[in-house]
């Protein structure tokens, strides 16, 4: 069938409920052109001005630490909007066993199972940057778990590292048969060895998440 529209939405409420409107509802916000996804320290809060104080995540002195909060940087309002249920409780994370966190709505069928993937930039060609594992997919700082059909199963879910097509998540078990939502949850893990990265790698603004799908 023709290329389906794919809307990306994020749940900014404390309710773990399904999305009811592909344009957004009381819980889910439609990801707009120019918006960004970021992870921040616990001091950052919903309603903070994007142009105001920024509280970056902090690399731990030893071991691993989950980023405290995931935000939608909503450029239409100029405000941070926390995706409250994002992440797990591993490494002092503040998420949990939550299902309806990140969503993609397909307006119609796909020929294959859609995937969530991460790339160095919008050419979707490489995944060699430090945050995506620098060639070792397991070291990607972004981990995700599909929740289209079920909860993660545990508050301490680990997820699958995201690094191009080497390591990704299938967003359903079959190709999309008709208009529907798929869901996932995701976390960012900071590790002590990241301190050896060049500064530019800490502030990499080129990374993109992408939905890999097909149509006919």
């Amino acid at each position, binding site marked *: 069938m023709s290329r389906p529209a794919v809307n990306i939405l994020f749940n900014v409420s404390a309710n773990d409920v399904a999305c009811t409107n592909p344009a957004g509802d009381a819980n889910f916000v439609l990801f707009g052109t*120019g918006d960004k*996804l970021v992870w921040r320290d616990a001091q950052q809060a919903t309603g903070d001005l994007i142009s105001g104080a920024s509280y970056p995540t902090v690399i731990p002195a030893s071991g691993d630490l989950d980023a405290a909060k995931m935000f939608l940087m909503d450029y239409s309002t100029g405000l941070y909007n926390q995706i409250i249920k994002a992440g797990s409780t591993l490494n002092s994370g503040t998420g949990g066993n939550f299902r309806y966190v990140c969503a993609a709505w397909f307006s119609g069928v796909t020929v*294959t199972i859609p995937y969530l*993937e991460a790339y160095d930039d919008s050419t979707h060609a490489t995944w060699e940057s430090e945050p995506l594992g620098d060639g070792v997919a397991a070291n990607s700082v972004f981990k995700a778990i599909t929740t289209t059909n079920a909860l993660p199963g545990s508050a301490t879910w680990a997820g699958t590292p995201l690094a191009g097509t080497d390591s990704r998540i299938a967003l359903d078990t079959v*190709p999309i048969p008709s208009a529907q939502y798929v869901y996932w949850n995701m976390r960012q893990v900071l590790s002590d060895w990241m301190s050896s990265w060049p500064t530019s790698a800490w502030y990499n603004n080129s990374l993109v998440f992408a939905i890999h799908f097909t149509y006919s």
Partner: protein
Amino acid sequence: MWKINLFLENGLILTLGDVRTSKPGWGESDPVKILRMEFSFMGKEYGKEQPMKLVLAGMKEYNFFVEAMRSVMNNKVTIQGLWFLGKLPGSNKITGFVIQDSIKIVNATEGHEFNGGVTAGWKQGIPGTVVSTIVKEVL
């Protein structure tokens, strides 16, 4: 150019939409048995643009789809590849081509034809006719 021609059992030729648009037409089409699938496109050989034709014939079933990427960060959809597949008669093998930055041959078993995964949207062919899988220059 850039459109699929389906040569059908009844002698008709069904021409689908431009595969570079959002409506390639394969999904909506309902052809009677397919004898042959042809696709003309502009390829590149030794750095020079060259009209080419892809042909799949004699298959038990045929499939076509566009591989695409929808960036989460913006609303852009980019085409990553054009897939032309056929199920070989008398086996569980799938063959065909994917046109990306180069043309790659697909050889897979049923259910594993797209990066190890299954595909939907197959249409009936006519097994028993001559099998052909070629990409050729058009003079």
